[in-house]
């Protein structure tokens, strides 16, 4: 085992909060080790709705959450402008004015007040104020809505690529001197006289083991916290909730549509990047977060909720059902929906682990503010002079001087839609990425036509974005997760990554198999229509010809 290294702080968990905290601490000059047992964003951050919304849903219960979220949404737009896009939402009124009952009228009024109140927070995140639409205007904007609606109010939100947000935070942390280890599990905490003195880790790929000396450990392992805490003799109380989303193969509606589920819960159908997303369920989950799959009742629940407003959704092509476990503060009694999205930093000093802090709760939109709070706390604990947080000012990697996709497309001779996707994912780093393709014209091959992935992009992420497994590319550039399921791209991308990471043929095949298996688990609950035909082809190629 190598000589233990010293760090000011070790952060466990490569989700938004862990990567964000690592970045903030590193930017303040602390020496940081970030350990993630799988890949960055492989938990809840990667399975979020992909929104940095202001949390209008929480306004009734937690106005502070809404304000915090809106303010931070504004900051995230500033530091990663390329990764953020507008999603206007419609909140339709269920019936026509003439026939409305008193209760329905009251509901409209309440909605307008509700959305109007939200407008007060919109300037914080750079959103547009809401508008009241007549029925005619509503149908002109969104013809897929069921007939008989009385109009709608609009609501402005921001979408984001959640996994890449985590990655960019980790890359920025590295640029500020942090050490980031993915696929590396913290196996144990070392304590001495009631204080944390170190962390032991094990690399899941190489089997290498190591030790880090540190006085401060931030546990940001999300849904894994209770299990991890138990193994390390501390209690991390929380109420984990499973959230399932469905992806559709295309932008199914022009706008986001807020719907009501059969049990009255608010849910949505929204265009997001090149697909549409239906979300989300929210159910208590006490199972194993490593063993998570959408069930048929969850799929049916989501479809039924959207069908009440968009009947044609039954004919849509579903490409996957994906799930994550969010952590919420522990409370006994309230329903899952009413649980607070507030967060908490638990100090484990009273359990004989001074220096260990567990982060529970919070939301993606506020990850930066939450990370700031963590960094403040770590600084305080270590007795360091406070240094200002700059994470809301310094752009994330690629967030400065975002290039014009059309210009890049012309200069490098790649299709414009592809350039657009690459600029969205990589911001100003798209320039370096395309330089690879200038040096080697083969790299201009469009590997995935669904997502616009260039061979050069596969090589670029493998070289520069902490890729250790092929499946990491699902989160780096959405490899093989669209409707195609990797029919065209999986093998070719695997070949490219293998060359970069020096895998032999057996490793390549094993990685390919893992990737396909991860995809299969997300698809199998939604196989229908043409997606099922696609599955037959995938099986013929990957099982039949590939033996995978």
């Amino acid at each position, binding site marked *: 085992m190598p000589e233990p290294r010293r760090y000011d702080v070790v952060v466990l968990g490569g989700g938004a909060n862990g990567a964000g905290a690592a970045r903030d601490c590193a930017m303040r000059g602390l020496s940081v080790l970030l350990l993630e047992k799988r890949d960055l964003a492989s938990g809840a951050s990667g399975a979020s709705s992909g929104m940095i919304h202001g949390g209008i849903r929480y306004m009734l219960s937690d106005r502070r959450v809404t304000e915090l979220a809106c303010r931070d949404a504004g900051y995230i737009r500033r530091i990663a402008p390329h990764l953020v896009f507008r999603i206007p939402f419609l909140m339709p009124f269920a019936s026509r004015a003439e026939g409305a009952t008193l209760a329905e009228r009251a509901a409209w009024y309440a909605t307008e007040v509700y959305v109007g109140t939200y407008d007060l927070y919109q300037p914080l995140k750079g959103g547009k104020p809401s508008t009241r639409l007549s029925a005619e205007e509503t149908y002109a904007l969104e013809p897929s809505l069921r007939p008989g609606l009385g109009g709608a109010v609009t609501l402005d939100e921001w979408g984001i690529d959640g996994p890449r947000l985590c990655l960019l935070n980790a890359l920025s942390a590295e640029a500020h001197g942090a050490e980031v280890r993915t696929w590396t599990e913290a196996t144990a905490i070392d304590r001495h006289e009631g204080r944390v003195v170190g962390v032991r880790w094990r690399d899941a790929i190489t089997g290498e083991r190591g030790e880090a000396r540190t006085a401060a450990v931030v546990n940001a392992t999300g849904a894994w916290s209770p299990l991890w805490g138990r193994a390390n003799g501390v209690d991390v109380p929380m109420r984990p909730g499973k959230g399932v989303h469905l992806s559709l193969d295309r932008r199914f509606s022009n706008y986001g549509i807020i719907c009501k589920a059969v049990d009255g819960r608010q849910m949505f159908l929204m265009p997001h990047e090149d697909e549409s997303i239906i979300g989300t369920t929210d159910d208590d989950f006490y199972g194993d977060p490593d063993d998570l799959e959408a069930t048929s009742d969850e799929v049916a629940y989501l479809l039924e909720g959207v069908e009440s407003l968009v009947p044609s959704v039954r004919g849509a092509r579903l490409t996957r059902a994906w799930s994550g476990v969010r952590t919420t503060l522990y409370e006994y009694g309230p329903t899952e929906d009413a649980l607070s999205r507030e967060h908490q930093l638990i100090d484990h000093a009273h359990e004989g682990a001074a220096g260990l802090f567990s982060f529970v709760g919070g939301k993606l939109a506020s990850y930066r503010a939450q990370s700031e709070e963590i960094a403040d706390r770590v600084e305080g604990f270590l007795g360091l002079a406070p240094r200002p947080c700059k994470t809301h000012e310094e752009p994330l990697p690629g967030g400065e001087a975002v290039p014009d996709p059309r210009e890049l497309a012309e200069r490098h001779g790649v299709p414009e839609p592809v350039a657009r996707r690459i600029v969205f994912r990589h911001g100003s780093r798209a320039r370096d990425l395309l330089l690879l393709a200038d040096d080697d014209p083969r790299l201009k091959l469009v590997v995935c036509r669904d997502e616009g992935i260039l061979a050069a992009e596969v090589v670029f992420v493998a070289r520069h974005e902490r890729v250790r497994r092929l499946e990491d590319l699902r989160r780096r550039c959405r490899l093989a997760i669209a409707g195609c399921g990797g029919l065209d791209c999986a093998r070719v991308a695997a070949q490219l990554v293998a060359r970069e990471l020096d895998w032999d043929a057996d490793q390549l095949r094993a990685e390919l198999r893992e990737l396909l298996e991860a995809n299969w688990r997300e698809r199998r609950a939604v196989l229908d229509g043409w997606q099922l035909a696609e599955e*037959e082809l995938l099986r*013929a190629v990957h099982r*039949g010809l590939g033996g995978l």
Partner: protein
Amino acid sequence: MPADGAAITCDVLVVGGGMAGATAALAARDAGARVALARRAPGSTGLSGGAVSVAHDPAALPDAPFGGRAGVVESARRIAATHPGHPYHVLRGSLDRLWTAVEFATGQLSSILAPPSGRNRWLLTPFGKVHPAATCQRSMVAGDLAEAKGVLAVVAPRGHLWWDAGLVASGAIRARPLGAPETRVVALDLFLWEDAALARPVDLARLLEAPGAAEEVGRMLAQRLPRGATVALFPPILGLSPGARVPERVEGAAGVQVAEFLSDLPSVPGLRLQRAVDERLAASGVTVLAGEVHGAAGPGAPARVGGREVVAESWVLASGRFVGGGIARRGELLEPALGLPVLASEGAFAEAGAHLAARPAASLTVRDSRSPQPLLSAGLKVDAELHPLDADGRVASPRLFAAGAVVGGHDQASDGTGMGVAMLTGWLAGRSAAAVARARPVLPRRG
């Protein structure tokens, strides 16, 4: 007379133009029947990789040498004995005719398919797997690992990323103890100009058809061949049309045998095969109609196909599974052409019968993708005569037969019997349909 053409009366209507449908049509034609074949579009046969997979021994140990493995028919018998839902099991009484069917179908397509020998050929795939096949396209024969002697040179075109010769060769290296030859990767300065670097496989195949192109490749190859090389294995892009003689031209210039490895998608060999099937159907006097058959009443009653009316004494339903459209799932599993019940599958719901179709997708699949998947193996249930069965287990119609992937109970896409089942069921169904039409006609005869 309707503007879109006269009504067609024939003995046998085949629905589907893949390997099963084509075999059925050609077998019925061979038996003297007047045959019409309706097809909506090229199906999964046009997407196949070049292998004609009939059966390989399910009980063979992974380290059993190629030479010591069971022959194709014996392998099919072993599958029949161990896989209760498999069409080979349902047709176990007719398995002695499997070889006749395979020889008939491959013989009809001898312009493109090599004659089968009775034992499996072992062919490399782009994934570095060694794939057993009763036969394959002629351009692939020299790549049979069980036969190749000397050194096998796997060609890596330097200018294109689509294939990784090292990955392909890894299959042969792993199979060395089973009798595979020694393998070397040979890089050629092929496709180095930018247009070619970005071309898709079909375009590359066309490039090689151009005058002089194949000869140039052959000369390049001759200079790079490793000592002892007897076969050069290329990506499956040696021409779109067998008439362009790309492999032969490369061979002539290189002075060494040339073969392609199998293809994944998009598949040039699949396009070639579909084209050969179409040519054979046309040459045999089968009336090919373009169009979907949907919600039809079945044999004896008129059906509309692409604006034409067709009426036939007997039908062979060879419409494929999900890719072909013979079976679909729109909330539940169904058979769109005739509305037959989807009753057969392998795995957990093999005996579920009518309760299979409406189950949610998550219940019809299991977590490990390598396990049998009821959903992917779903299709019609047939009796030993290939008559589809209704929900009560009765023959839907004595004039109706099913062939190919529309018959359920096995994972035809990946279990290594897809083409064999298509040929056996197609041949049997085509002959039976012709016999029924001849013995018990119900339609008024003309001329």
